[in-house]
């Protein structure tokens, strides 16, 4: 078998004549057209789906798809025209109902027609890129009904009128509107947007623009916000009830813009009811409403925050600069704390604990607390008052709460070193007079200060506690060693204070009475015997004494006085009358202290164990003093306070300030040297910035002070200026 002989077989198609009835297409279409009529006339029960389907199938099969399709379009259009007429004819309220009913009919019909023409839908339409039957039905409905000139505007106005009616409080048929809206959506979201939503939003904007104008003219801020909130909720409900969900953001946007954004400045600053009034009156609900509404618009929250900040700053500034309020330091600090509590509560109740609001509050406090240079002193006085007596009867937790609040104020202070200075003074007084309520509270506060500012800040304070403890032990040892030879002499309690840890100023010791001098000498011997190489000097300005005194009628009293007063009173053991000059000479107490001591001995009613001549309010240098025979009191024990200023007087204040400034110099210099040592070369502004950063946990260094320290360091050849760039400094190792 050779390959060339291969034959190609051909299979011929079986040819048979297809007999086509020339009237076939016409006939079949007539059947289908009739069926469509019947469907639209609700008369479909007599139709055979099977037969109709086959007819349609055959038509497509016999390439009459085009005829079928165009026939469908024509027939359906005709029916829709009729429907359109009947809808147009509907009167008033029945318009929507008619539309809705016809829409339901059309949908049902469309369903059936699609089923019959399913074969066309599947084969003819995709191959000819025509619109599928269902979509075609919708498009025809859209073009013939919705966009018919007699219906389009009427439908829109009817819908908008219904919304308007509902807004003014009437009840409408939501179900009906919902169906119509859904129809628009079924026709495509573009139809919904173009034929309804766009207009709806415009009309709403107008409505709310007018309404908000009315509201704002006649309502106060709180009421307005309530109304705005209600409107907002209504619109959201409307969307969920009968509009498309995609509209929610758009319509709320309109309400927000018209009712809030356009009026927010006026609302916030509204006289007698604006934000400031709400803050003052603690209107948590209104404030919360304002917060949640304003949060929806751009810059809303920052507006609230700014107004709140400036309000807090203003009230704070008034609070700290009012000389009347600064008279009582404890009240002053309590007011600050109340102010803080108040706004903390507002932020947590109404402002959702918003971090940015908390920061604004903190920075405002930091701003105004430091406006008053005495704030550090007052805060320390507040602590002093609390630790002396204010905390009596408090539970441990309550004490912690108070101390934590104080620490919070402390954090706001820029001049923490000034606080330290005063705190030291006050603590010293508390410790030496044994006035502190609770050792635990004292130590707890020190621990807090330590965690806040570091070891350096509290080391001296802790040294003071150590001294107190050591002194107790020393006194036990002293009394034990003297048990035999003390006899009836006065009992001495000595507190040995390490120089440097305590805020003592060297003051000359006064002349002590002989009785006391003896025991003092014994103590000195004892102490130096156990601690060689130390020096003791007596701080007579800080001590106290208990005296027993017998008055004219033999009544006895125990007097608790200061060491100075004790020295004065002891003089009257040997004399009934002493002039001011005589007392001054005998005791050598510094004049100002002497005057204060005498004042409290002779001029305080109920405690006047001395009598002064002439009787006057002040102590003069020519006055004479007598032992007050006729003194009576219902108390056996009497405490005679020295008239001492709780708050610092003006010259004292300046002295403290000066000491603080002096103390700062080495700190600034040390910081500069530390920085330059690691950086070697640095320009002026960066040094200032770094020094400020390093020191701000203690105080805010003044740039001029830093500059002066730099100049001093240049002079002492720690630094030099760069030869070329004079703004650069070099570290000279």
């Amino acid at each position: 078998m050779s390959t060339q002989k291969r034959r190609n077989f051909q299979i011929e198609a079986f040819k048979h004549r297809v007999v086509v009835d020339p009237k076939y297409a016409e006939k079949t279409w007539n059947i289908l057209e009739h069926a469509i009529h019947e469907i639209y006339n609700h008369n479909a029960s007599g139709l055979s789906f099977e037969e109709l389907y086959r007819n349609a199938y055959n038509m497509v099969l016999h390439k009459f798809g085009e005829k079928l399709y165009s026939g469908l379009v024509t027939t359906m259009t005709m029916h829709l025209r009729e429907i359109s007429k009947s809808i147009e004819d509907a009167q008033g309220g029945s318009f929507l109902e008619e539309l809705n009913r016809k829409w339901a009919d059309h949908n049902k019909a469309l369903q059936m027609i699609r089923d019959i023409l399913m074969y066309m839908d599947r084969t003819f339409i995709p191959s000819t890129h025509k619109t599928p039957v269902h979509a075609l039905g919708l498009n025809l409905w859209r073009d013939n009904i919705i966009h018919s000139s007699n219906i389009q505007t009427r439908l829109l106005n009817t819908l908008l009128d219904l919304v308007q009616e509902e807004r003014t409080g009437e009840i409408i048929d939501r179900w009906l509107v919902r169906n119509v809206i859904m129809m628009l959506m079924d026709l495509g979201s573009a139809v919904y947007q173009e034929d309804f939503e766009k207009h709806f939003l415009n009309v709403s904007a107008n409505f709310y623009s007018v309404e908000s104008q009315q509201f704002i003219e006649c309502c106060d801020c709180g009421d307005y916000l309530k109304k705005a909130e209600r409107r907002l909720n209504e619109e959201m409900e409307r969307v969920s009830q009968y509009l498309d969900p995609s509209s929610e953001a758009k319509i709320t946007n309109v309400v927000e813009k018209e009712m809030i954004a356009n009026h927010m400045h006026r609302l916030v600053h509204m006289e007698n009811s604006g934000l400031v009034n709400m803050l003052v009156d603690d209107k948590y609900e209104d404030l919360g409403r304002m917060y949640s509404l304003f949060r929806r618009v751009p810059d809303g929250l920052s507006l609230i925050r700014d107004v709140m900040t400036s309000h807090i700053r203003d009230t704070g500034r008034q609070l700290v600069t009012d000389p009347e309020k600064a008279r009582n330091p404890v009240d002053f600090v309590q007011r600050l704390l109340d102010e803080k509590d108040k706004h903390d509560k507002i932020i947590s109740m109404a402002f959702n604990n918003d971090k940015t609001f908390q920061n604004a509050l903190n920075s405002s406090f930091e701003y105004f607390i430091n406006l008053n240079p005495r704030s550090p002193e007052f805060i320390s006085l507040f602590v002093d008052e609390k630790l002396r007596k204010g905390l009596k009867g408090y539970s441990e937790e309550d004490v912690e709460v108070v101390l934590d609040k104080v620490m919070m104020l402390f954090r706001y202070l820029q001049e923490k070193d000034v606080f330290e200075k005063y705190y030291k003074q006050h603590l010293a007084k508390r410790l030496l007079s044994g006035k502190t309520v609770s050792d635990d509270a004292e130590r707890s506060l020190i621990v807090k200060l330590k965690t806040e500012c570091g070891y350096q800040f509290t080391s001296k304070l802790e040294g003071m506690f150590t001294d107190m403890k050591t002194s107790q032990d020393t006194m036990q040892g002293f009394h034990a060693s003297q048990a035999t030879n003390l006899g009836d002499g006065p009992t001495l309690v000595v507190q040995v204070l390490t120089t440097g840890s305590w805020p003592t100023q060297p003051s000359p010791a006064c002349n002590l009475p002989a009785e006391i001098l003896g025991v003092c000498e014994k103590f000195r011997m004892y102490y130096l015997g156990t601690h060689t190489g130390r020096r003791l000097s007596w701080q007579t300005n800080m001590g106290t004494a208990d005296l027993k005194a017998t008055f004219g009628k033999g009544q006895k009293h125990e007097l608790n006085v200061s060491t100075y007063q004790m020295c004065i009173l002891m003089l009257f053991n040997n004399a009934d009358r002493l002039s001011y000059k005589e007392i001054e000479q005998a005791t050598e107490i510094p004049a100002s202290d002497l005057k204060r001591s005498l004042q409290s001995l002779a001029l305080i009613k109920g405690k006047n164990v001395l009598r002064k001549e002439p009787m006057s309010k002040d102590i003069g240098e020519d006055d004479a003093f007598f032992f007050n025979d006729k003194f009576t009191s219902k108390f056996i024990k009497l405490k005679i306070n020295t008239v001492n200023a709780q708050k610092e007087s003006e010259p004292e204040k300046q002295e403290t300030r000066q000491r603080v400034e002096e103390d700062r110099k080495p700190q600034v210099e040390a910081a500069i040297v530390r920085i330059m040592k690691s950086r070697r070369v640095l320009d002026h502004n960066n040094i200032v910035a770094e020094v400020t950063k390093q020191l701000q946990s203690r105080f805010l260094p003044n740039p001029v002070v830093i500059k002066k320290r730099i100049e001093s360091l240049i002079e002492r050849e720690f630094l030099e200026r760069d030869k070329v760039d004079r703004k650069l400094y070099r570290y000279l190792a």
Partner: protein
Amino acid sequence: MDRSTSIFLDIFQIYSRFCDIRSSDDANAREMLVELLKSVEFRWQARNSVFDDLSKLMFHLDLMVDSCRFTCFYDFVFFLCRENGQKNITIEMALAAWRLVLKGRFRLLNEWCNFVEKHQRYNISEDTWQQVLAFSRCVHEDLEGYDPKGAWPVIIDDFVEYMHRIRTSSCNCCDAEVQTCMANAGFHAGRKGF
């Protein structure tokens, strides 16, 4: 003989020695300067007579052209004004020296000297001395060219503030005049800052 010549080095020789030491990169420059100062110390019994010599020196040096050379001379003046090897110079010396050497070089020389005379209490340090020259070079009559963040010594900051204060107080009373000037020409444009 040898010794006496070294004592009686004239001002030109001292100056050239000073310049030599300064321009050499010798690590001992500092000590050499101290030596030099010691050796010329008792040349001017009355301190003020130093200025006669200085003006003589100034006359002979051609200082107008070269700012580097003037800086060297300027530092030399400070060097000679130091008494007993002290680091700083007194205000009187500084004022006299400034009036001599900065004449015609510092537009605010008079104002500056008056200010220092009235307000400065401490001696003038070398850094301040040098910075005054730098300041005189960059500042204009209307105080333009001064940068408050420019790391100037505090005394210069104070001076500028003082000048501003005087100017604003005197400006208030001659407002009308200033305005006519402005109308005439852009003459006072530089004053816009006030």
